[in-house]
């Protein structure tokens, strides 16, 4: 419970190990402590009446977990399923407690140890870009990794769904 504690924006507390993955041409990072496992693309059962980015549910060794397509969630064009497409199973803190969720990404890259001095606070992009999901930006080897606030990315869905 260090880097993933919510609402802490101080970069020092963001330092730690991240699992990085690709979505379209961008690189993102998730706190590695929240990652349960990475599985290859599986057969997903669609659930009606939900936004398109909620792909449905899958059977993870007897557990039913929801699966989110992060590309659609972030407004990218739908991606083709390739041999590198995979589902990152993460622990999320929702209003009702901790649950497991699957996140579809283009491919996973590596686990990086990101020190505090490589992390910058999220800049203001103006109104057009929602930065709520972003904890910070990390510059690693000349590229920028966007560090995600998992609970916000995945937690907003049920809030929106309940309001609907």
């Amino acid at each position, binding site marked *: 419970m260090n880097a993933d504690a919510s609402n802490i924006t101080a970069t020092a507390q963001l330092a730690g190990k991240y699992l990085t993955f690709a979505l379209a041409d961008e690189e993102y990072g998730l706190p590695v402590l929240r990652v349960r496992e990475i599985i290859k693309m599986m057969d997903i059962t669609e659930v009606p009446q*939900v936004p398109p980015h909620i792909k449905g549910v899958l059977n993870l060794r*007897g557990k039913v977990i929801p699966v989110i397509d992060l590309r659609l969630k972030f407004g990218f064009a739908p991606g083709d399923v390739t041999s590198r497409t995979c589902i990152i199973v993460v622990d999320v803190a*929702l209003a009702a407690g901790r649950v497991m969720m699957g996140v579809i990404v283009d491919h996973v890259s590596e686990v990086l140890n990101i020190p505090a001095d490589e992390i910058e606070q999220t800049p203001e992009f103006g109104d057009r870009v929602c930065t709520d999901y972003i904890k910070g930006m990390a510059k690693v080897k000349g590229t920028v990794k966007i560090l995600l606030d998992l609970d916000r990315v995945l937690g907003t869905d*049920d809030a929106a769904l309940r309001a609907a």
Partner: protein
Amino acid sequence: MTDNELAFLRDDPEMADLFMAEALDHLGTIEAALLALDERPGDVTLLNDIFRPFHTIKGNAGALGVTSVQEVAHRVENLLDLARSGRRTMGPEDVDVVLRAVDVLTSMIRDVGVRLSGQPGADLAPVALALIESVDMLISGETEVRLKPDTTIGPDPLKPDTTESRPDPVSSARRGEESTAIKVDTRKLDSLVDAVGELIIVQSLIQEDPALANHVDQRLAGNLGQLKRITAGLQRSAMALRMVPIRQAFQKVSRIVRDLSRKADKSVELVLSGEDTELDRKMVEEITDPLMHMVRNSIDHAIEPAAARQAAGKRPQARIALSAYHQGGHIVIEIADDGKGLDTEKIKARALERGLIAPGASPSADEINALIFEPGFSTAEKVTEISGRGVGMDVVRRNIDALHGRIQIATEPGKGTTFCIRLPLTLAVLDGLIVGVGRERFVMPTTGVRESLRPLPAHVHNVQGSPRMVQVRDTLVPLVSLGELFGLPHESDPCKATVVVVEDAGSRVGLVVDALLGKQEVVIKSLGETFASVRGIAGGAILGDGRIGLILDAHGIVELERGANRVAA
């Protein structure tokens, strides 16, 4: 207690275990009620809650020949009976003595276990005698009983013995044999049941694996069969762990009947039967509220005041019968009152007024009666403290739906109403019909399925160009295309597809699906909070091939369809 009292129990160890477990359970109940009584002396319900278990213990002990236990329980019962009939108020002394009786009886019951296991028992006779004496003294009117140490039976039996040489038989028996029942955190039980559910899925995956199907080997087949039997046995045992008698729910109902009959000034006799019928612990919890709602409604609406009852030629005292029994893998709970019955005409008028039925429609009596389960529906002329606000029956049906149960009403004007609730024994497993739409499969709980058919073109009626009704024998049933509803590719011609007629609260709809794929017992899994707002889906189940099939919720589908029609209209 003497060993020859135990002759009967020794022959039937199972009965002995049951007797002891039940008695100890009752003593626990009594103790809790006594403590409450201390704060509210004269509370009749509490007194009854104390009296009844004593009576049961007495009866059981008598039937099994344990006369010393019977005797103690009998004497205490005498005292309680005085209080129950209002001839005595239970003061602190009385409560003290009865509490002491609980201790003594607990020791005696434990002593039974000790003796049955072949060890020498404790000599509890003096303690029992002393207790009986103090009870008798209270009864004989010496309200200021202060028990003096009695020289004939040694040290004060009501105070723990402090001398080392003669340990208090009560506490030594308590320290002796512990009960064979243990308390387990329900979460541990739930995770066990979950794990067994998963085991069953994997077992059926292996059993149906095509690689094995082609492989003929007698030993493998034998072992697989054995595995299947053991898994099924394990499942039964795991489920049995969570089964408890429905008594707890019935007791709450007894309580409410006593309270309300006094409040509403209607004399009501509650007849309970089948309190020992077992079902899943969670179901007992979930069904308690609906039962209380329904009994509350019965007393307030259905049961007439005594004068009106007499005028109608009925007994002035009304009768509500609450019974539970097993039937075909389900539990059936019936609530029958002998009140005035449902006023179908009045319900119909109210439903027309509220637009619940279209003018000119001619619904059947059953369909009309089912309308009392609609939200906000009440025909009560006046709102009383008890009910009439139209909340309640819809909640009842929602709760029962959530338990995958069904509720039916049988009513006869002037004679009374019977509600019949049919529930599965457990929430964890569901008997389902697997249906296919497009490439998705769904599980329809069989409790809601009436029949399935492939209609003839002549029986399908179009409305505004699309098939909307099907004639099933002589009734018209609205059609709902599951594929259309859920936005899936599907067979749109009902004559090439299959229609599954499902019933929800008296109204029927025909679900159009592409195919019937089979029947399977599935383990119900929640889809989680993410899908909390999805209607028409009750959960997920892992099917034979490891994929998830969504479990359909007939009520939700009917509501969805109605909603869609309303928007379209």
